[in-house]
């Protein structure tokens, strides 16, 4: 029974990863592209260059902070929306559908729309101006980072909402009844009865959402273009630019694997902290 899954895993994950790993130790660029896997062996040179002589570490912090901030902001939004639409009210299906619009829109569409609105003479700048806030530059300079965070939150919060909603559906009706009989008010009921049911789905949503944020290439690419402003040069943008604009395929692969190691550390810590890697049976 494990064989089909194992074969799939080998071809879909193991082979590409090993190939990428091998490319990362080659001097593979436009001059050696035709040789591909026969390109000159570079050893650890690409890794050394990636870590010591490229913006990789800066991009790593930009990506990580942007992803964590986006997730942190999306969680309360998603949970609040799930709670608001849990109980039936007329038009609930319509509201639930509207909530999903940002999530189902392709990233490049989202980015194109927001890029238009964030133009120096766009609706957002004009709107802020009417409120007395004079800032015209949202697609370059330090503000571009917050533009990226804001648009990412806008596009991704429905994912948290979906998983929180799924978690809420799993709360037994009896539990609601029992807490009502005990006279629990809304906050204690939420805090001690409902939230424990959400812990698992929301923790999982946090991991997936954070990885999605880190992986989001289309959003910063379309919002800011290439070369990207320094403040929004995320890992995908840096890797793309190095690989496909500068033709440093080996260095790009080394950057990707360096990123993997850097990201794996906080990921493992988080997965262990929220016990996503431990099934319920093992706890008993």
């Amino acid at each position, binding site marked *: 029974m494990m064989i089909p899954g194992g074969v799939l895993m080998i071809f879909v994950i193991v082979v590409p990863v090993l190939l990428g790993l091998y490319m990362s130790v080659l001097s593979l660029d436009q001059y050696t592209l035709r040789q591909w896997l026969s390109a000159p062996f570079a050893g650890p040179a690409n890794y050394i260059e990636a870590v010591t002589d490229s913006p990789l570490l800066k991009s790593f912090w930009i990506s990580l902070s942007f992803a964590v901030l986006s997730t942190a902001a999306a969680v309360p939004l998603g949970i609040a929306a799930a709670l608001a639409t849990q109980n039936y009210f007329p038009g609930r299906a319509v509201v639930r559908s509207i909530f999903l619009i940002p999530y189902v829109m392709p990233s490049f569409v989202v980015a194109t729309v927001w890029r238009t609105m964030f133009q120096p003479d766009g609706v957002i700048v004009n709107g802020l101006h009417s409120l007395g806030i004079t800032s015209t530059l949202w697609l370059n300079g330090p503000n571009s980072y917050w533009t990226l965070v804001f648009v990412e939150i806008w596009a991704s919060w429905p994912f948290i909402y979906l998983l929180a909603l799924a978690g809420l559906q799993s709360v037994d009706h009896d539990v609601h009844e029992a807490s009502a009989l005990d006279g629990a008010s809304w906050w204690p009921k939420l805090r001690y009865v409902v939230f424990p049911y959400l812990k698992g789905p929301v923790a999982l949503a946090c991991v997936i959402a954070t990885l999605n944020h880190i992986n989001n290439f289309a959003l910063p690419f379309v919002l800011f273009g290439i070369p990207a402003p320094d403040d929004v040069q995320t890992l995908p943008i840096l890797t*793309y630019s190095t690989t496909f604009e500068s033709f440093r395929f080996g260095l790009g692969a080394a950057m990707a694997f360096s990123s993997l190691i850097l990201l794996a550390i906080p990921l493992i810590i988080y997965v262990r902290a929220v016990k996503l890697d431990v099934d319920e049976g093992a706890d008993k």
Partner: protein
Amino acid sequence: METRRTRFTTLTAALAITALVVTACSGSTATNSPSASTNTPIAAANTPSAAPIATPTATPIDGTGKTLTVLISADGKYGAQQQQWFKDVSAAFQKQTGATVVFQTFASGSEELTKIQTSVVAGQGPDIYVVGTTFTPTAYSTGAFVSLTPDNWNQVGGKDKFVQADLGISGPSATDQVGIPYTSGPFVMAYNTDLLAKAGIATPATTWDGLAAQAKQLTGNGVYGMAIGYKDGFDPWKFIWAMSRQAGNPIIAGKVAKVDDPTTLKAYQTYFGWLTTDHVVDPASVGWNDGQALAAFASGKAAFFPMSTTSNIPTLKTSAVKDTYKFALMPVVPPGATTLPADGVGATSILAGNNIVVAKYSKNQDLAFALVKYLTDDSNQQVLFNTFGTMPVNQTTFKAVTTSNPALGPILDSAASSVATPFSGAWADTQLALMNVVVQTIPDLSAGSVSDSKLQSLLTAAQKTAQASLDKAP
């Protein structure tokens, strides 16, 4: 044991997912970066008619049962006409040789690069690639495209049939070439004749300093002297290159990058100075691309519009200034000078447009060169000019267009006096580094001041990038 296994499985899965997202992220494509050089519509968007089949001078080729694939940029403005042109070319070439021609299009520069890179690695793909002129050095450096022999040139009709200036970026030397000129799209400057006449200016200046002085004179009452798109993803480096070249700095000289040369610093200072010190451009242009700068000029809000693409001309023809604009060559005397320095080159434009390269792996190279001949012959070049507005690279067509379109004189002059960017595999990186200086300066520009120290530090970083890329070149 079960717990450990579960933990291991979960962690492995998590790592695998992370690995996939990290490694796969750069494989995406998106849609905002057009190819380095795109078609340049000028004439009305007529429905193309098939060019008459040129009588082949070489031995007729039998391509019966064979298929040629051509990779070419999708024309966003004239999509329907391009599709029709594809059909016409296929039909005409099939009639001529019996071969089928299939056109594949790409919508963005990143899509083009991905296609070329995968084809080069796989050793299979399109037979013919239409690439931007500034990409030709990179294509050459891959070694994946046919190095043109005298026989190959004869197959496409001989070198003499081309505008000789257009051969300037076909290869590193006159005897080592991969790119066959296909279309041309030189820079030119549009100016508002009414505004200049009111200010008592007879003709645009031929020096950058003179142009800035005229622009100051023309600025006021809601009108700015110049329309510039500082936020454009492709244009800014072209001005920097032109000014540097005019001052005697080729940016790349052999194996030495000269990005941090004082002439380049002066070029950036001049380019940014139009906004920060001369105040001859609209402050909003910090966020403008080329299209927005065009809109400002087309609405009569700017007196000069230095254009890096002739594809803007159809818009001008139907704009509020349709009867009050003319073209002139861009200044050729560098900032701070009154005459061209001894080592300077009077570059009016980079050698802009498209070249054709033929893949080495193609099994139908003779057939491919026959198609290239057809595409670059006078008949098809006429069709391209009339349908898409691209400037001809064929001598005969060029002369005919010059005679019948006197208003386009400056554009054709610019085409003839264009100067090629350095033919180096490091050029793509260098170009990106030059663009990056502008991108990272936008916040300062928006604040109204760009310090020399900031500019110098950005140029130092750009120099490092360019030199590192040059050092890797064989």
